[in-house]
């Protein structure tokens, strides 16, 4: 059984084959295409299990690998499975499998199922490629491919203009970050002459400090884009235009965590520069608290979760900045479980109510008890209530950040309190009070319920798996710090209390927003206005510049000056149209003139001979 890890490349190949099959034969299969697509993550999960078992059994380093020259001398693409990869494969395989199951119930038979499930399988393969790559080139390939899957899935309902815009925005914003990663690769190639992890990591000690810092920074730019950290976070809230299961998989559990994975994977580079670490800590801490603030002001259930994801990723970045990438990985795993759970819970609610607006929900506890129950588990895990998984991982994050920089530690405590506040507020708005929407919401079929239960189990229990997770990631599991844990829990309770109060909306049809905080609310809801700043300072000027280049520079100056062959003719006195008058003899005269000129040139060149 554990032997299948030897065929690690199959975690890329199998999903790709399935994607092709789903795309081509999907029409024939009907809704059964979901079953086909589910095989992809199932296989990834199986390989992850096998590999994890071998790592936990004590195998050191990469348990299996292979590579092939792909782009000329030295530029190889290969795969290798070690503990960190195995851990991520488990996460990706499990969440993706559950999301495929959930999607089966979430999307009706009228949807373009072959396209959806083919891209989902493609995503699984691309994400696996990112994970099992044995070097930066392979990672970059997977990195770009998951980005495009994200684009395709955000724009799944492409006839909705918002979805299309959001898809483009997501791709372009992450593309900016990707350029940093690409530049990092170019720099690594120049410095090392090899892009495989082992060669790069071996070369790091011999490099100049400034070079290491530059590489680290460039990698960080890539990670910031993919993981939606400030200032490239603007795409993630908009990405909620995609189907909710997609948000759960790509924009909560796996793809957006790739930035964290990258920094953990490249730790020998990132960790070699204290400056880079400081920047990561600052970025992560700032993002964590700013996004948590925004999450508290949202009116849309998915936007709450989107900002929450940005915020939680900020926690992970802060942990890496504090030097504890194993802790970041631990939080990544628990977050994947409880955030995917929350998203799928939201999906279940949206499926039942047909809306994403919080003010059109309420009182769903009685109508959808299973969804409500699993949501409570996820929400409590996110808020950091012991003994759920989020409590353990967040405690470790806070502990390490406090140890590294007290100031940012305090900020994270504040962010953590806000987290408890916004998720409680959302919970109250959705599940308590009376129903403010239309129709009669009820639970979905088994395919909607089973994933919720499974994820709830993981979200509840993963906290106790800190040891094995850390071991897989390749580090050591920290102890619970009683002081930090107590403060954090106390603050979480405070946040929950405030959130519960703010969330209580007794009357049907009341505008929730007016009853919450005043003043900066709108500002916070719009991501502190940063979106607008980017639009005014980057997007618009870029488009305007392009237009000016086209209308004024290219057609006005460049083209006209070279069409000045016509102007020459005008000088001769025949006017521009003479060049195209149909006067053959005039053409011939020009031809002759050209010949004479060329001969003159030849004569001039021939002087010396």
């Amino acid at each position, binding site marked *: 059984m554990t032997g299948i890890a030897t065929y690690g490349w199959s975690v890329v190949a199998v999903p790709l084959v399935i994607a092709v099959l789903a795309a081509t034969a999907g029409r024939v299969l009907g809704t059964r295409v979901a079953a086909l697509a589910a095989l992809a993550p199932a296989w990834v999960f199986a390989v992850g299990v096998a590999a994890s078992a071998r790592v936990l059994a004590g195998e050191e380093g990469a348990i299996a690998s292979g590579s092939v020259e792909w782009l*000329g001398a030295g530029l190889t693409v290969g795969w290798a499975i070690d503990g960190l990869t195995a851990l991520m494969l488990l996460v990706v395989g499990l969440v993706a499998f559950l999301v495929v199951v959930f999607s089966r119930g979430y999307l009706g038979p009228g949807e373009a199922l072959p396209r959806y499930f083919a891209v989902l399988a493609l995503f699984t393969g691309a994400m696996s490629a990112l994970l099992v790559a044995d070097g930066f080139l392979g990672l970059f390939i997977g990195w770009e491919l998951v980005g495009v899957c994200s684009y395709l899935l955000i724009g799944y309902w492409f006839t909705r203009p918002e979805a299309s*815009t959001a898809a483009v925005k997501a791709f372009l914003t992450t593309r*900016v970050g990707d350029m940093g990663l690409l530049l990092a690769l170019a720099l690594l*190639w120049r410095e090392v002459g090899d892009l495989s992890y082992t060669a790069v990591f071996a070369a790091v000690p011999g490099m100049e400090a400034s070079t290491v810092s530059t590489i680290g920074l460039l990698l960080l730019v890539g990670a910031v884009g993919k993981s939606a950290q400030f200032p490239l976070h603007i795409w993630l809230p908009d990405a909620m235009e995609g189907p909710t299961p997609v948000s759960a998989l790509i924009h909560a559990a796996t793809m957006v965590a790739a930035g964290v994975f990258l920094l953990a994977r490249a730790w020998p580079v990132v960790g070699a520069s204290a400056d880079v670490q400081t920047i990561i800590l600052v970025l992560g801490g700032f993002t964590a608290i700013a996004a948590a603030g925004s999450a508290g002001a949202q009116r849309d259930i998915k936007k709450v979760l989107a900002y929450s994801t940005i915020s939680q990723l900020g926690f992970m970045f802060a942990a890496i900045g504090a030097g504890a990438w194993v802790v970041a990985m631990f939080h990544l795993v628990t977050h994947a479980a409880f955030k995917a759970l929350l998203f799928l819970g939201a999906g279940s609610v949206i499926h039942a109510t047909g809306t994403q607006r919080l003010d059109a929900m309420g009182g769903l506890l009685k109508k959808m008890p299973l969804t409500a129950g699993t949501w409570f588990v996820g929400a409590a895990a996110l808020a950091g209530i012991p003994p759920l998984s989020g409590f353990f991982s967040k405690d470790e994050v806070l502990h390490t950040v406090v140890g590294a920089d007290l100031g940012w530690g305090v900020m994270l405590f504040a962010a953590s309190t806000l987290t408890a506040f916004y998720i409680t507020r959302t919970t109250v708005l959705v599940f308590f009070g009376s129903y403010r929407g239309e129709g009669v919401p009820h639970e979905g079929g088994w395919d909607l319920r089973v994933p919720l239960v499974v994820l709830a189990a993981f979200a509840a229990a993963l906290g106790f798996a800190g040891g094995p997770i850390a071991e897989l990631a390749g580090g050591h599991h920290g102890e619970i710090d009683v002081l930090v844990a107590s403060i954090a829990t106390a603050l979480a309770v405070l946040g929950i209390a405030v959130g519960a109060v703010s969330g209580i909306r007794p009357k049907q049809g009341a505008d929730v927003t007016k009853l919450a905080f005043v003043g900066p609310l709108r500002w916070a809801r719009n991501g502190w206005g940063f979106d607008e700043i980017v639009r005014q300072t980057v997007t618009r000027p870029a*488009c305007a510049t392009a237009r000016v280049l086209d209308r004024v520079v290219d057609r006005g100056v460049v083209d006209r000056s*070279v*069409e000045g062959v016509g102007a020459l003719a005008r000088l001769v006195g025949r006017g521009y149209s003479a060049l195209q008058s149909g006067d053959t003899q005039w053409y011939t005269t020009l031809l002759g003139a050209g010949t004479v000129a*060329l001969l003159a040139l030849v004569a001039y*060149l021939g002087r010396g*001979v």
Partner: protein
Amino acid sequence: MLAVDLLVAVPLLGVAAVIALGRGSATRPRAIALAFSVAFTAVFASLASAGVLTGTAVDGIRLAREAFPFWTLRIDGLSAPLLALTAVLGPVAVLASWGVREKAAAHHALLLGLQASIAGVFLAADVILLYVFWEAVLIPMYFLIGVWGHEDRRHAAMKFFIYTFAGSAFMLVGILTAVFQTGHTGLAEVLDSAFVLGQPTLVFWLIAAGMLVKIPAVPVHTWLADAHVEAPTAGSILLAGVLLKMGGYGLLRLALPIAPEVFEAARPILAVLGGVGIFYGAALALAQTDLKRLVALSSVSHMGFVLLGISAGTERGFAAAMLVMVSHGLVAPLLFLLVGQLYDRTHTRDIERFSGMGATLPRWATLFTFAALASLGLPGLSGFPGEFLAVVAGFGAWSYSIVPVMAGLVLAAAYNLRAVKGTLHGEIAEEWAEISDISAGDLVPAVVLAACIVALGVWPMFVLDMTGDALALIAALAGGM
């Protein structure tokens, strides 16, 4: 080997056959043309057994020297990928003009003539012969644009002709100077004795001028957009697919080896031209509302990578240039093919007028999205390996100066996705709700191109295996200075 000569002879025979057998018929010429272009592909495939795919050089048969003093053909690692491209695009171009009924015999004869002369350019191992083929390419292209083009075709055809003819006139002077001063016309002999050149700088720039117009480099790119917009689909396919490649090919084949020391000095200029082309072309493409013009200007951007790769002056940079050329030779034709198919159905290319075509034309939309993703350099498709290699090689040569190229890459994503969003996405336009999706016949050429794009993207070594030795030799020349 006879097969080398057949690469020129088969399309020429096809011209004769189309004229002789296809006159007056609307449908017979296309069948004959398809047969001969497929025969071209078959001949090229037969050369694989001679090791062409691994970079082995194969000479054509030597005709009587007195009778044909300049007839020397040779296929090597530098020309093999581009000939492979020609072999793929020939049948695609014929299939793309399947619907041409007006003067069909002339149209298909010109297509085959174009294919013959392009193959000749890539095969010629004699500078005079090279020049003859180089000019011969212009004529069928001129008529394809001028006769079967759209509204403003005459102006575009004339502009195309004047630009490229002016460029090749400079090139002719450069070639003649080299011939007179070295006393040879054979490519190898000319290059071997190129050290006797009295004015290498002038010779290099004269030849390079012809190439830069063809590529095209900014600021002599403006013929391209007009020519593409007005050209019929098959013309656009061959224009973007192989004609532009003559520029990059010529730089590596002739300009660089004839004056390596001048090339060394010219590298920064080439790099700037390339970098500006990448950024400027992408910015222009972003501002277009005409879908075909957008694709045309994206060519300026992509071909900038060719210049960037060459400017690195290393084997890796040259390999990047070759990869980009082959990739662009697949992606741009696919885009033009698809835009042409859309135009056939809607008779407009205005992005603003389209909306929600993804729902109306699902098959077309899938292919168009695919092509746009290939164009923006998605890994796994053909655009990525070349552009990645160009960035790596460019960074090695020019360090952080290539950051504007990165901006160009972001813009590339922007204009491609804008094209997709503008046409495919959004609410379904009433105006186009009734039009029919592309037929199986339309699918064939598109799927052929798409398959090649995927194949090259997954396994770029296919091209690198061919070019390896040839590029190493050129790189040794460039580095030897």
